[in-house]
């Protein structure tokens, strides 16, 4: 049992190392063609806008800490920020195996949307 736990721990450590190594390879090399400043958002779930930084104040490449759906988490001046993927040029690999629902939600429901989630 003890041996199994050790093995599991080792596997977890290796997985974590691989993940961080992969994220460390990701870099932002420039701003998008028509951008002159980089918009920075909170990396928290609300994604609130924090500030915009002029292109001249940025030093490229910028390491990507996390590749999220539609954006990246980066560290600037010691703080973590979220940036939109469309605002920057990065070396991320594109995943084309997305399995999304492409239907409409046009069922007429006799309830209004709840405060969170899919409501009802």
């Amino acid at each position, binding site marked *: 049992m003890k041996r199994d736990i050790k093995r599991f721990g080792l596997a977890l450590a290796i997985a974590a190392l691989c993940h961080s190594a992969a994220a460390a390879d990701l870099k932002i090399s420039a701003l998008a063609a028509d951008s002159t400043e980089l918009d920075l958002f909170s990396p928290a779930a609300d994604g609130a806008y924090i500030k915009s930084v002029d292109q001249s104040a940025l030093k490229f490449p910028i390491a990507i800490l996390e590749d999220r759906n539609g954006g990246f988490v980066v560290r600037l001046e010691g703080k973590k920020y979220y940036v939109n993927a469309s605002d920057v040029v990065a070396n991320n690999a594109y995943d084309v195996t997305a399995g999304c629902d492409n239907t409409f939600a046009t069922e007429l429901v006799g309830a*209004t949307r709840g405060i969170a989630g899919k409501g009802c």
Partner: protein
Amino acid sequence: MKRFWAYVLLIMAFAHLTLNYSPLGLSNRADKYLQDLFNTYAGSMVYGAPQEDITVLLLTDEALETHQRGHWPASYDFHGKVLNTLLHEKPRAVFIDFLWLSRRPEAPTHGPRDGDYLIKVLQRYRSAGIPVYLAWTPAVKQNWPELEQGLVRPVGAELDIDPVDFVSRTYPPTVDAGMQTPAFRIAQDLRPGLFPQKPTEPMDVFWGTSPNEKNKWMKAKKHETGLVDTALDGFSGVKTPVPFNTTLYVRDLLHQVAETREKVREQAAALMKDKIVLYGANLTGVNDLIFTPTRDILPGVYLHAMALDNLLHWGPEYKSALGSGLLANKWWHALWNLLIVLPVALLLALFHRRPGHDTPGGPEAGKAGEGAAKPARRSRLNLPWAWRTRTWALFDRHRVLGKLCIMLALACWFAVWGAVEFFYFNISAGTVAGYLAFLTLGFFLDKIGMVDWLIDSMFMRIRNACGRLARAPRRHQPRA
């Protein structure tokens, strides 16, 4: 001859009633229903492919789930992100079909307030010269005084729903307080010479039904009702089809997926570069849905997209209840309808047989050849009377076939004019039901002898009145 013109006059009066009035709204309802059937089954032939210039950007549950943890209304910063991503693709114009009614939160102790980023993005749009149209109400104006400084162009996005069948069929040029609707304003702004005169007539939106190749990725809920079922039972059930207008989900805009960055750029450009983008939502529990004339349920933004598509497709000749040109006037329209009916009324009067009179096989025919002699004399003077007698004889030989031929000829006559009204005079629904009512009720009234009774009693009243008038002076004459 007097009787002939009295007959024509009565038929025309009857036609005026059936064509221009709708007792209990039935005629109007039938017209609209036939208009919808025509749109559904002839839409692909009549309308063709969608406009390449229009793209609907749709916010769905998935995007809200990923970027807002499912919260609704979404934060203004989120809308800012979507619009900023869209700005990279250089659209030609953007219409935002959201009512920004939620109050902006108070500014935190440090950092910007929700909505500041949205203003920043809209300023970028202004700098890029891309017009942004926003669904506007007094509440939006109160929440967003900053937007009035030239950041957005306000438009009224109220829906016009038919109170009987709830179909969103009509799209007005302006709404309350003269504010223009999105489709009309965008069309006029982006194509300044499109309307020689300011449009005033509400549009009857004609729904495109051709498949859109760019929407192949979307899934539809199949609808089983075919033409035969509809012909037998009418419309039954509703469906959510793959929309006619090119569609892109916010989910895919924010998380663009392709093999390479170049391909992503290429696909994004094909959908958004230099396009008119209409940004709307399709969210569970947010019933911004419309019921289309083709009996589909779609997100509300598609009504604006389809109205804009109609305007770019037909320009000032968009379809409406009164049409365009000379006929776009209630009185001209009524007169025009009567002119269409006039030849029919003349023919009906010509071939009308008063029971027991002038019938080749009727009771007067055998009286010393009187019935046969009259038409023979007339035929030398006037060709139609001889023709009438021959046609009567023909109808007597082939009763059913003759009546069917008449019905078919009349139906064809009205169908041809219905098509002329639609294509040439841009009238959305010809007064088809009015014509049908005229035909069926007209035949019925004629069958029970109502028209003859009316003419007889009319003549009798005139004769009596004339007699009274003639006698009246005698009463005042002094006795000899």
